[in-house]
């Protein structure tokens, strides 16, 4: 059995995607800007990716976004599905550094996690999404960049707040790998 891609990863992909789909419709309305909302699913994606790595994350992001859009909105906006996977891959590459499962998600890891998520969100929503919108759908430039930037801002808030708290809480539940102490 390939250790890197075991049963747990397969199940995590499945359940993570299901979670992501369900949370498609769970948004926190920002209130002051119409039609923008904080997507709670972004935090879930970041969390699952941080715990299970880039492949699991990319599948959750890609399949979850496509499926969630399909069942809730009846159409799939491919130019926004791809960035979701891009985001997951970037966050996931550094998943070893966060050490969430090892129970060592402390201040240093929180900083790394948040720096990476801001960069990943920027690449995904300010570069990849608008460019694909222009290439695939020939939409007006300024419109897609305004949309991209607002998605970027909303997502860094969600991932930064909810994603970080989730990781901290889950890290505390798991056992610390260095928690054993030598008896005197």
């Amino acid at each position, binding site marked *: 059995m390939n250790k890197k891609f075991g*049963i747990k990863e397969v199940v995590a*992909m499945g359940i993570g995607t299901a979670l992501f789909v369900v949370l498609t419709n769970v948004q926190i309305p920002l209130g002051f800007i119409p039609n923008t909302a904080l997507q709670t699913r972004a935090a879930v994606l970041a969390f699952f990716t941080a715990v299970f790595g880039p492949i699991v994350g990319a599948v959750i992001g890609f399949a979850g976004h496509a499926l969630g859009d399909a069942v809730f909105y009846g159409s799939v906006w491919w130019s926004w599905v791809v960035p979701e996977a891009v985001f997951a891959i970037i966050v996931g590459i550094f998943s070893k550094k966060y050490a969430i499962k090892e129970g060592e998600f402390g201040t240093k890891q929180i900083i790394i996690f948040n720096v990476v998520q801001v960069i990943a969100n920027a690449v995904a929503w300010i570069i990849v999404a608008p460019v694909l919108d222009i290439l695939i759908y020939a939409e007006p430039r300024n419109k897609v960049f305004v949309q991209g930037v607002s998605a970027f801002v909303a997502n860094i808030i969600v991932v930064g707040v909810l994603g970080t708290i989730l990781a901290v809480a889950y890290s505390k539940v798991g056992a610390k790998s260095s928690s054993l102490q030598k008896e005197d």
Partner: protein
Amino acid sequence: MSRILTYEEKNTWIHGLSGVTKFLFFLVWSIVSMLTYDTRVLAVMLLLSFVIFKVSKTSWKQVGTVFKFILLFLVLNLLAVFLFSPNQGTAIYGTRTVLVPLVGRYSITKEQLFYEFNIMLKYFTVIPAVLMFIVTTNPSEFAASLNKVGVSYKISYAIAIALRYVPDVQSDFTKIKHAQEARGIEMSKKASLMERIKNMSAILFPLIFSSMDRIDVVSNAMELRGFGKNKRRTWYAGKKLTGKDYAVMIATVLFAVAALVITFYDGNRFYNPFQ
């Protein structure tokens, strides 16, 4: 009316097709409608979509709510395009025929209307394909057929699990939400933004941690049954590709090639009636 699209067992020609065939159709169909801005191609696709819709005996009750939602989305998008770029049509088609002069650069031109009409057509051609795929494809059968055509069975199984657990996670979510609301947690606009994020985490935390538990339970069960031990596995819901599957696949690919040739014949993807 169901608020979310789900598979429904029916006995039609389309239900009888393999999940892979429908998936291929859905992919090719949405790629073509993504690429083309050719009004003629889009119109033909729209017509075909309606035929498919009729043949699959999809009822309004199954898709009505979602459809209304899409319309709202579409209108918002069309308005946004006009707001941000009222002269996109002129830029694309090269001419400018003002119909209704408004303030400043915001005039309604024939070209802009035509451009936005094309965006609308694009929306309408994709929708039936997506709806059709979701309501006529049995999830277990789909996962099995994905493996049959060469997708690794671990990925197929992950997709099967995802489709299988969406309703379960959904019901978990509703239960937790009701429980937290009974404890007096405010989720509406009355609470401030920070307050709302905090309250949302009161739902999210139990949901995600119960899901993490579920991952452990399910993967232990699968391990006990020897999942992943052999290179191949058999499927309960698997279906062999039949003659009509191949016929549909070939027709789909031929259609896509023809549509793209017509679209790009004159050098770009727009059909220009103004010159």
